[in-house]
């Protein structure tokens, strides 16, 4: 397990979320929590202060990933990696305005996530 570096997974597809969690744990990354809803993601992020958020853009039930990230970043500076199945240029533009530490296409390459985590730890 990595020292006190905890990741919050925000993904509404449970099979994808579980698979991601298992792969991260196998790679030695501690997963703080996982949620399918944007509103829950905001609450968890502000209360538990994760080191990194893996944020799916398309979410069911209310806030989408970008809106959730905006609400979080207004109060806390937490690094965010956006994940997307298929993102239009408009969506990418909206997401990149928030200066995320990564923008990854699905299926997620765990090696890339690891690289970002390593860079974050160094900085």
């Amino acid at each position, binding site marked *: 397990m990595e020292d006190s570096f905890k990741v919050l997974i925000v993904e*509404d*597809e*449970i*099979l994808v*979320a*579980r698979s991601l969690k298992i792969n991260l744990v196998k790679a030695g990354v501690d997963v703080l929590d996982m949620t*399918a*809803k944007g509103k829950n993601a905001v609450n968890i992020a502000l209360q538990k202060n994760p080191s990194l958020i893996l944020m799916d853009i*398309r979410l*069911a*039930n209310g806030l*989408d990933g970008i809106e959730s990230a905006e609400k979080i970043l207004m109060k806390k500076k937490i690094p965010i990696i956006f994940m997307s199945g298929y993102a239009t240029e408009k969506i990418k533009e909206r997401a990149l305005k928030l200066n995320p530490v990564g923008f990854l296409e699905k299926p997620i390459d765990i090696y890339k996530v690891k690289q970002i985590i390593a860079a974050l730890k160094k900085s």
Partner: protein
Amino acid sequence: MSVKKIMLLTIMFLICINVIPSYSQEIDTLKNKLQNVKGIEKLKILNKLAGCYWELPPNERITFANQAFDLANKLNDQKSKADAFNNLGVAYNQLDETQKSLSYFMNALDIAEQVNDKDRIAQSFLNLGQANFYLNHFDKAQEYFQKLLEIRKELGDKQGISMALNHLGNVMAKTKRYDEALDYFSKSLTIRKEINYKMGISQIYNNIANVYFDLGEMNNVLEYRLKSLEIVRELDNKWEIAITTYNIAEYYLYHNEPDKAYPYLLESQDLAEKLDNQGLIRDNLQFFSWYYELIENYPKALEYLKDYAKLTKKQFSEKLSETIVEMQIKYETEKKEKEGQAYKLKLEKSHSEMVQLLFLLTVALFTTFIFYYRYRIKKKSALLLEDLVDQRTHELQQKFHELEQAKQQIQNNLKVKEKLLLELYHRTKNNMQIICSMMNLHALKLDDQKIKAVFQNLDDKIHAMAIVHQKLYESKDLSHVNLKDCLIDILTLVKQSYSELSNQISFHTKMEDINLLVDTAAPLGLVFYELTSNAVQHAFPNQESGEIKVNLYLTPKNEIILDVSDNGIGLPLEFDIKKIIGLGLETAIGLVEYQLGGEIIFETRNGLYCKIVLKKELYKERI
């Protein structure tokens, strides 16, 4: 240009008739005083009355002047005699009897020269110069004004010198010697500035402007008119302000700048109305018509032209009446003076008839002009309207054509994209089937029944998802599927996969048509597969017959209710199903509760009863 000149002269003529303020009280006083005085004092009053050029009509002044002449003769007062002659000359000049007028001025000059009265000599030169000027005898006029200048210089009278220079300038301008005219005006201006004779300065500015008008140097015209206006405003000379603003308005209208002309025109008309000067009011009406013509408000232009015509007609009638009255008075007066002039009176009467004839001719010409002008405006408006309609029609046709082309292009693009999307769904479904086939082939080579069962289970789940995609490319809008159709096909899949077990089971379905986004339909299809396959496999362990019921409906709150129940063995009461289930049902619960934000309930009734509740509008539509 000549029309404008005539117009200006008309105005000047009308000024004489209308503008000068009335001094009737002073005249009445003088007339009363006349009854009570004699000798030299009476002579002075008579000459004073004879010199009231603007307040009294010419014939009345002639009477006073004749009386003054007789008295001066009696008293042997040569200077007053000269004054009487000058007054007679002015009066006859106003009656257009210029030869007679010249003769009186000459008499006045003779007397003034005899008594060597320089002022009166100068006055006679001035009168002679002006009389010749109006007779267009410019050489003579120049000669007298030159003499006037010399005598004023001799007297050292600066205002008189400036006046002579001004008159000489006017003669030069009339004879198109513009450089000399400007030279005289410039000299006159220098003196007037020196003696601070403001009204005179304004007059020179206007004369200079007139020269530049003739020369076609329009920028200078405006400059001098504005300078003149500044002075008359300072002096608060309402009449001069009215005339100068009129001239400035004319300049702007002439240069097709109606917006700049309009305020000057308004001011001129306002003052003309306050001064009750019908001549200027009439001419301003014509300029208003011109203004509206320039801004293409033709109905207004016509309205002002009509007003102008009405006033012109009225003024000509009044002028004619006045002329007739004056002629009659004159006839009576002269009859008393000289009976021998009867023949001349006849000639004058015929002149009056000529004036009447000319008036009628003018009215006829004017009416014709109005009708022609009206016809021209109507024709012009109709042509303009026709052109505008043609132009707009053409533009609309062009726009319509462009829109049609754009619409066609969009429809073509849409068809292409729909085909591509259909192809994508189709390929997704085919790829899923290929994966299923590969798994089947691998499963066939396996001996381990448990692993085989896992492969079969995965194959069925992929198949269930493929069913949803198949329904998607069969649907009309390419984003929604009919959930009922999907569930029926998935149930068929379950029956086929577990055919040995399902033969003993009767299936009862009661489902409503619900159109649902594929994002919700796909996981719900997987859940449905888990629930039904679970019931087929575990509800009836002893291969006895049984039944499985499926209900699907939408609540008024727009919630989807899906329940699956069987009449099998159910669960022992002390067990919580969520704690004893395998990976399949765990996934189903996760899909409903975590992913779809819904609720899943398991109960033991007459077997196992499972109810799923979830919101229909879960995702925002992508398309």
